[in-house]
């Protein structure tokens, strides 16, 4: 066993740093460092920068344009990006639908969609949850009925993250009502510009528009857009969810955030001493670093296993649960540290166009805390993740 990077890995690390130093757009970096939201164009611009370098497919097989890196290189790459504060990759195309397409899709689908995903020419979103089907996803009701060369889709999806920006959506639809509810589900790709697709915003408690309802009213989709076999969608959906869960732990981002909070705490006073010197605060920070070490090592083990061909399995639930719990601990710690300075709110009649005394860094703390309540709910609630571990890992 050896935790040190080889000479080759160190060279690679320098290469990543050099790339970021030269190519990470300065105006995007400034916004990210400031905690400001990026526009759609800026998010696309960042992905295109990475695509141009050929580093988008960091988890893809070489034959589809992937980098073919081993676990260590992927780890180094993602860590450097996170430590530099780069925007997270929009995962719906790159890490979610793409593995389904290159594993189960037709040659035509691979040729049509994969290069565009790799180049971020298409923005993808996810059509999974429905108002009545959250944790119990297999009970979904959105219907697709065969009509000649097409399927006609009717129904409603919800919690579609950034659906307002998307060009394509991958949708789980019911093509049969007989048998078990997991059977009769089909995985289909829908162009968002198809007549009858409507996106309606959902405003969340942080006041933000990030998630949406997506409605389907007699939407006609070519039958060739079905991925894999009709009625086998549940198998692909589960495959995809394992990929989703393993990609949301976010250890390096948290390392960066806890370090920046600790730095900020040198100038925060609750009583006579800076918060950074407060024993209660310090013990929370230490506990956080310690738990983050364990998470990071677990993530690394997952990457190594994946590299050996053991694709992410039910163990990815472990990362999802612990990762999201830590993310929430972090946003809580930031909120507690910031105290009354976090009160001003950026929404209607908020501090926009106003001078606020609270430091700039304090202004996004409350909305971040509120926004991060979602992380233990999305991608399958943490309660569901525990059921998966109980059943699939412990055999209970």
């Amino acid at each position, binding site marked *: 066993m050896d935790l040190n990077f080889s000479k080759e890995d160190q060279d690679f690390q320098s290469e990543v740093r050099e790339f970021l130093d030269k190519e990470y757009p300065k105006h995007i970096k400034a916004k990210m460092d400031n905690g400001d939201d990026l526009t759609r164009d800026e998010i696309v611009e960042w992905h295109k920068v990475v695509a141009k370098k050929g580093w988008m497919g960091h988890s893809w097989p070489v034959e589809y344009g992937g980098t073919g890196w081993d676990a260590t290189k992927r780890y180094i790459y993602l860590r450097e990006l996170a430590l530099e504060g780069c925007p997270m990759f929009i995962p719906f195309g790159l890490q979610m639908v793409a593995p389904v397409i290159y594993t189960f899709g037709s040659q035509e689908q691979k040729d049509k969609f994969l290069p565009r995903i790799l180049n971020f020419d298409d923005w993808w979103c996810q059509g999974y*949850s429905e108002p*009545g*089907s*959250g*944790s*119990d996803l297999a*009970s979904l009701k959105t219907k697709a009925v065969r009509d000649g060369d097409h399927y006609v889709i009717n129904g409603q999806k*919800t*919690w579609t993250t950034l659906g307002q920006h998307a060009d394509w959506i991958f949708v789980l639809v019911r093509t049969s009502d007989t048998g078990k509810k997991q059977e009769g589900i089909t995985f289909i790709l829908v162009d968002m510009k198809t007549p009858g697709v409507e996106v309606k915003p*959902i*405003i*969340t*408690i*942080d*006041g933000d528009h990030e*998630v949406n309802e997506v409605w389907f009213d007699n939407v006609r989709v070519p039958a060739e857009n079905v991925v894999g076999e009709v009625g086998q969608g549940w198998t692909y959906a589960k495959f995809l969810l394992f990929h989703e869960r393993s990609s949301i732990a976010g250890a390096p981002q948290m390392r960066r955030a806890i370090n920046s909070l600790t730095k900020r705490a040198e*100038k*925060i*006073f*609750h*009583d*006579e001493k800076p918060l950074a010197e*407060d024993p*209660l*605060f310090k013990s929370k920070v230490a506990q956080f670093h310690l738990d983050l070490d364990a998470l990071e090592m677990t993530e690394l083990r997952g990457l190594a296993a994946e590299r050996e061909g053991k694709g992410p399995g039910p163990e990815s639930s472990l990362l999802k649960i612990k990762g999201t719990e830590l993310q929430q601990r972090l946003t*809580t710690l930031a*909120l*507690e*540290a*910031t*105290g*009354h*300075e*976090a*009160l*001003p*709110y950026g*929404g*209607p*009649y*908020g*501090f926009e166009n*106003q*001078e*606020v*005394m*609270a*430091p700039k860094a304090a202004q996004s703390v*409350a*909305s971040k*805390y*509120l926004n991060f*309540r*979602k992380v*233990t*709910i*999305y991608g399958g*609630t943490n*309660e569901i993740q*525990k059921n998966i571990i109980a059943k699939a890992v412990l055999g209970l």
Partner: protein
Amino acid sequence: MNLNYTEEQELLRDSISKFCSSDYDFETRMKAVNSELGQDKELWKMFAELGWLAVPFAEEFGGFGGDEVDLSVVFEEFGKALVVEPYLANIVLGGGVLRRADFAESASYIEKLVSGEVQISLANYESQKGYVLGNIDTELNAEGLLNGSKSTVLNAPNADHFIVFAKKGSGYSFALVDKNAEGLTLSGYKTYDGFTSGDLVFSNCKPVAVFEENNALEVLEEVIREAIVCICSEAIGAMEKSYFLTVEYTKQREQFGSSLSKFQVLQHRMVDMFMETEYAKSFLLKVLATEDKDEKAKLTYGLKNQVARAGKLVGEEAVQLHGGMGVTQEMSIGHYLKRLVSIANVFGSADFYLKKYSES
């Protein structure tokens, strides 16, 4: 020993509870939150007519002569309905100073507060100065002029007057400032929990009156202590409503062919929410029933810590058990969480009060 509320207190509770269920539903509340003023002036008038604004003031000023227990009752009921009308700002904070510090003409200010004619905010906390009450920079100079700044002054955009806590000589004082005073700049904003607040800057600003006694810091400490009891009572009301709404929601939400409330793991989580609420209530009663001033202060610090932790747990669990719906603006449950975490952190965090408790 007697742990019961008096008959008058039960009547007060009933009248607020009835009003909230008939005239202050979630929609009415959100209308106030999303309006520029952040409050409904008609409702404020109604509060005055119902006598609620008079609760803690002496009878000689048109008050009801109530005490901390009466205020606690008011706030517990407000917490259940997430009332954002500026009771804390005017009656507990601004009015709290007027009740304890005799200004020139403070009687007439109290009368106008009680009748709902004027609104008065207390300005004491400053940006980056923390929660030790005497740790401020704003100063009343030898010429009687105010210089400095105050941040997150509750209800500031609606205030007609400000009571400003300031250094004076080697001690502290309160200065009463009109909203239109020269040398006063206000920037108002909404806060994430739905309230209205603002920052004030004073530049050679002339107050209309100055508190002449030398116990301003002691007065402020007592006002903030009472305010902590009030917001903790409010939090307990909000916690009670949160677990109630969660129990109801899990009963009607079906997944896997059964209501969520049938899953034992979720039942236990709701039991925890209930227990945290009951323990917080017990601690509140201990504070309310304690007479010794120092002991009461120590227990209030303990209460702030207890309620901060319990409120956060209950609020977060309520959202989690509501699933995706819990994080939407359109459902009330997320707004309970916002108020609960705001209460957990205003006037100082759970850790700050744990230390104060252990040091008192």
